[in-house]
C-alpha cells in the first residue's frame, strides 16, 4: 500500500515537472520568436533609417551654415559689387548644369537600341533604361542627343506610324535609339552591370548593345525643347 502510494506521488511529481518543462519550452519558443523579430529585420531597418536621417541632418546642417554665411556676406556687401556678383554667377552656373542648360562630357555608358522588323522601340523600354541609368548614379542622360531633364517626357504616340516623343520632339519608333549617360568614375562599373542585367531581363526583340566610353558628350536642352516645355 505504502509502495503504491509512493509510486503515485512519484508519477504526480514527474507529470508536474513534465508540464513545467513543456510550459517553459513554449515560453522559450515564444520569447525566441519575439527576440528574432526585434533583433533581425525590424531592428536592422530601424538602424538603416537612423543612419540615413543622421546623414541627411548632417548635410542639412552644413547647407544651412553655408546659406547663413552667404546671407551674412551678401548683406555686408550689399553696397559692394565683385564678390557678391561672383557668388551669384557661380550659383547661376550651378543651376544651369542642374537644369540641363549646358553641354557636359565625361566617361560614361552608351546604350544602342536597334529595332528589328515588326518590333518598334517602345517608350516603356526607354523609360526602364533611363530610370535604371539614373538609379545607378548617372549624372546626365540623353536620348538621341535630346537631354533628359527633370520633367522630360518619354511617350509613345500614333499607331500607324508610331513615334516616341522626347522633350516634345518626335522620333520614329522603328529607328535606332542611342541613350548616353555620364557617370562618376567610381559608379561606372556598377552602372554597366546594372544596365546589362536589365537588358538581359528585358529580353526584348530589339537588339540592345551596351558599351562604356571614356568620353561621352551630352548636349544641353535645345531651344526647341525649352520652347516645348509647359510653363
Amino acid at each position, binding site marked *: 500500500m505504502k509502495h503504491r502510494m509512493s509510486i503515485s506521488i512519484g508519477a504526480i511529481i514527474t507529470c508536474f515537472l513534465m508540464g513545467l518543462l513543456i510550459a517553459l519550452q513554449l515560453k522559450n519558443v515564444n520569447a525566441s520568436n519575439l527576440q528574432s523579430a526585434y533583433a533581425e529585420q525590424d531592428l536592422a531597418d530601424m538602424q538603416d533609417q537612423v543612419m540615413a536621417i543622421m546623414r541627411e541632418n548632417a548635410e542639412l546642417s552644413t547647407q544651412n551654415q*553655408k546659406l547663413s554665411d552667404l546671407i551674412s556676406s551678401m548683406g555686408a556687401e550689399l553696397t559692394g559689387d565683385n564678390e557678391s556678383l561672383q557668388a551669384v554667377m557661380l550659383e547661376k552656373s550651378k543651376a544651369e548644369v542642374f537644369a540641363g542648360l549646358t553641354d557636359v562630357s565625361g566617361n560614361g555608358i552608351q546604350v544602342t537600341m536597334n529595332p528589328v522588323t515588326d518590333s518598334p522601340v517602345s517608350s516603356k523600354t526607354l523609360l526602364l533604361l533611363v530610370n535604371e541609368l539614373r538609379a545607378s548614379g548617372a549624372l546626365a542622360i540623353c536620348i538621341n542627343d535630346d537631354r533628359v531633364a527633370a520633367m522630360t517626357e518619354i511617350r509613345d504616340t500614333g499607331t500607324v506610324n508610331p513615334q516616341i516623343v522626347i522633350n516634345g520632339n518626335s522620333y520614329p519608333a522603328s529607328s535606332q535609339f542611342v541613350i548616353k549617360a555620364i557617370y562618376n568614375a567610381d559608379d561606372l562599373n556598377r552602372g554597366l552591370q546594372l544596365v546589362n542585367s536589365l537588358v538581359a531581363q528585358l529580353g526584348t526583340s530589339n537588339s540592345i548593345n551596351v558599351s562604356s566610353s571614356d568620353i561621352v558628350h551630352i548636349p544641353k536642352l535645345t531651344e526647341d525643347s525649352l520652347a516645348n516645355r509647359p510653363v
Partner: protein
Amino acid sequence: MYFKSLRNHKKHTAAELQEETEENSRITYTTDKKQHHTEKVLSMVLMLIVGVIVMTMIRESISLQQQLTAAKQNYSAYQQQLANLQTENENLKAENQALGVQKDQLTEDVLNEQGYSELALSLADTRRLAGLTDVEGAGVSITLSDSTITDTSDVNQTSLIHSQDVQYVVDMLKAAGAEAIAINGERIVCTSVIICTGPTIRINNSRYPVPFVITAVCDPDTAYSLLQNDAYIAYRKSNKCEISVSKKDDLVIPAFSNSSVVDTLYEALEVVS
C-alpha cells in the same frame, strides 16, 4: 526405538522445513529489498535528469528573457532616437527653406541694386527650370496606398504599392506635360530616383512609407482624364491597391532644397563650352 527414531526424524524434518521456509522468506525479503533499492535508485536518477533538464530550461528561459528585454530596450532606444532625428530633420528643412527664400530675395536685391536686373530674371528662370524654386498652380493629386485587406494568399504582394507604381505615375505625369512634380513633398529633379527600400520608398535620399501623395502642377483635366482611364492603374486598383486621383486648383510644389546635390553635380560634370 523405532518411534523415537521416527519422532526424531519428524523433528528433524520440521526443523528443516522451518529452516527452508525461513531461508526462502529471507531470500524473498532480500530480493524485494534489492528490487526496492533498484527502483529507488532509478527514480532518483530519473528525478535527477528531469531536475537537470528543468534547471537548464529555467536558465535558458531567464537568459532568453534577458535578451528579449535587451532587444526591446534597444528597439525602443532606436525608436526614440529616430523620432528625435525626424523632428530635428523637419526643423532643419524648415530652416533651410526659410534661408533659401531669404538668400534668393537678397540675391535679387543685390542684382537690382547694382543694375543687373536682366541677370536677376535669367537666374530666376534657370532656377525655375532646375526645380530650385517653388511652383504654384492648378494640377492633380494622386494618392497611392496599400490594400487595407490582409490577404495571406497574396504571395506576390500585388496588393502593396511598389516603387514601380510610383515611378509609373511620375512618368505618366511627365508625359501629360507636368511642370513640376513632388512625392510626399519631395521635388522630382534630374537626379531623382525612386527606389524600393524594404517597406519604404527612397526618393531623393529620403525614405517614405505609404501613403504616397504625388502632386503635380499641370493641366488638371488632361492629367485627370489620363490617370482615370489608364489600364495599368485600373489593374492596380483591381489588385485592391487604394489609388485616388483628384483635381486641385492651388497646389504648391516645393523647391528642391538639397544644395549639396546641386554642388556635387556641378563638380562632377565637365561643362563643355
